[in-house]
Structures are given as structure tokens and as C-alpha cells.
């Protein structure tokens, strides 16, 4: 069950990036659909943080705890910052910023797995 979350985030992040880049290509700015989509990414990442924190509380230990904690703090900030920075831009480059956020979320899942292989993707 918990393994499904990182996989979902990878697929969702890539799909979000593709949609956002399409909006850039179509000369659209950030609107409600993209903001809601970024909000969903935020929820997914918070669920993942919850799962990993529960694993840490359950006694599991990754090879580098400081690195994992850094990623746990950074991950939920990605959609927040990308959403804000993309929404204040009133041109096609706003969605491009959100595309970066989606890609980063997907890449973070691979990094989580490298730091702590019990996090399957």
C-alpha cells in the first residue's frame, strides 16, 4: 500500500509537468486547474512524508538520517514554492515553473529510494 505512494508521485509529477509544459506551449498562464493540480501534488507529498516519518518512528534507519530529514523538509516545499512562483508570473512562463516542480517531485522519489531503499518506487 505505502509503496504505491512514491510511484503515484512519480507518475503524477511527470503528468503535471507534461500538462504544464503544454500550457506553456499554448501561451497560457497559471489558472485554477494548475493550482488545484499543484495542491494535489502537495497532498501526495505530505502523505509520503507521513509514511516515512512513521517508518522512522517504527525504528527503521536510513544510511544517512540528516539527508533524509533534509529531503523530508524540502519535499513538501516544492509544490508550495513552485505554485507561488508560477502563479505570480502572468505569462506562459508561470506553468513552466510548475513543470519544474512536477519534475523535481518525481526526481525526489528516486533520491528517497537511494537514501533509504525501503522506500520503493
Amino acid at each position: 500500500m505505502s509503496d504505491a505512494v512514491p510511484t503515484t508521485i512519480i507518475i503524477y509529477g511527470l503528468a503535471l509537468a507534461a500538462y504544464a509544459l503544454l500550457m506553456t506551449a499554448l501561451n497560457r498562464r497559471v489558472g485554477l486547474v494548475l493550482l488545484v493540480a499543484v495542491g494535489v501534488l502537495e497532498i501526495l507529498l505530505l502523505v509520503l512524508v507521513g509514511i516515512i516519518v512513521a517508518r522512522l518512528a517504527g525504528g527503521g534507519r536510513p544510511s544517512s538520517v540528516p539527508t533524509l530529514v533534509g529531503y523530508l523538509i524540502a519535499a513538501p516545499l516544492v509544490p508550495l514554492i513552485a505554485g507561488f512562483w508560477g502563479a505570480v508570473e502572468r505569462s506562459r512562463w508561470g506553468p513552466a515553473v510548475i513543470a519544474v516542480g512536477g519534475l523535481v517531485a518525481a526526481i525526489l522519489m528516486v533520491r528517497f529510494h537511494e537514501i533509504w531503499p525501503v522506500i520503493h518506487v
Partner: protein
Amino acid sequence: MSEPMAPPEQKASPPDSTRTGPGRLLVAVYGLFALSASARASVQIATKFHHAPVAYLLSAFAAVVYIIATVTLANGSPTARRIALVSCSVEFAGVLAVGTWSIVDPATFPDATVWSGYGSGYGFVPLVLPVFGLLWLRRFRRGRSTDR
């Protein structure tokens, strides 16, 4: 299900500032690299400095360059643009030099830096980022009143 149209881009006039338009994306990616490079370098230097001192110091140097580029591109004043021009140039020279060094002399790099293999560990983004940064700054070279 689609986003609102963006206002038409005024190709004839120069951009408002280095942080709007394409600059928004540039600042976002520079900020990402500033954060990840500095966090990574801090952890490496604090926990295992003697494992690969040259690589970690170069990582820290790259982090500083990314921080300066992020701040100056987001600021966009004439002075900030001059500093951004220097930092993007240093960054481009750095990724080329460290990239070559890491291939010629891999023994010096038991652990990777951001710029190892021309940034191959980061999808070569470190290689293309300074190019886009310099191209973007070129559009402001003669100030706001003239278009190139």
C-alpha cells in the same frame, strides 16, 4: 480544462526585469540548484570531508555561485545584473573545467560534484543553465530603453 490565456508577449520591447517572463523559470531552476548544492555540500563537508576534499570544496564553491546567481537574477538591478553576468560566466567556466578535470583525473573525485562529467548526474542541467543565464542577461545589456 485549460488555463487562461496569457496576455500577448511584447516582442518589440525589452523584458521588464530579470525575474519575470523566462527569468521566472531561470530564477526557479537557479534557486533549486542553490538549495540542493548547498545542502549537499554542507552534509558532505560536515560528515565525511576527508573522503573527497577536492570534490566537496568544489561542490561548496558551486553552491556559492548558484546562490549569487539566484539572488542577483531575482534582484535585477544594474549592479545585480553585472554580478549575475560574472557568476554565470564563472559557473560556465567552472562546469567546463571541473567536467574535464573529473574525466581526465577521476581519482581526485571519489565522490561526485555538481559539475562532475559536465553535470551528467543532474541531467546536464548545470551545463545548459549558465548558457541560458548568459543569453537572458544579454537582453538587458543596453539597459531597458533599447531592444537588441
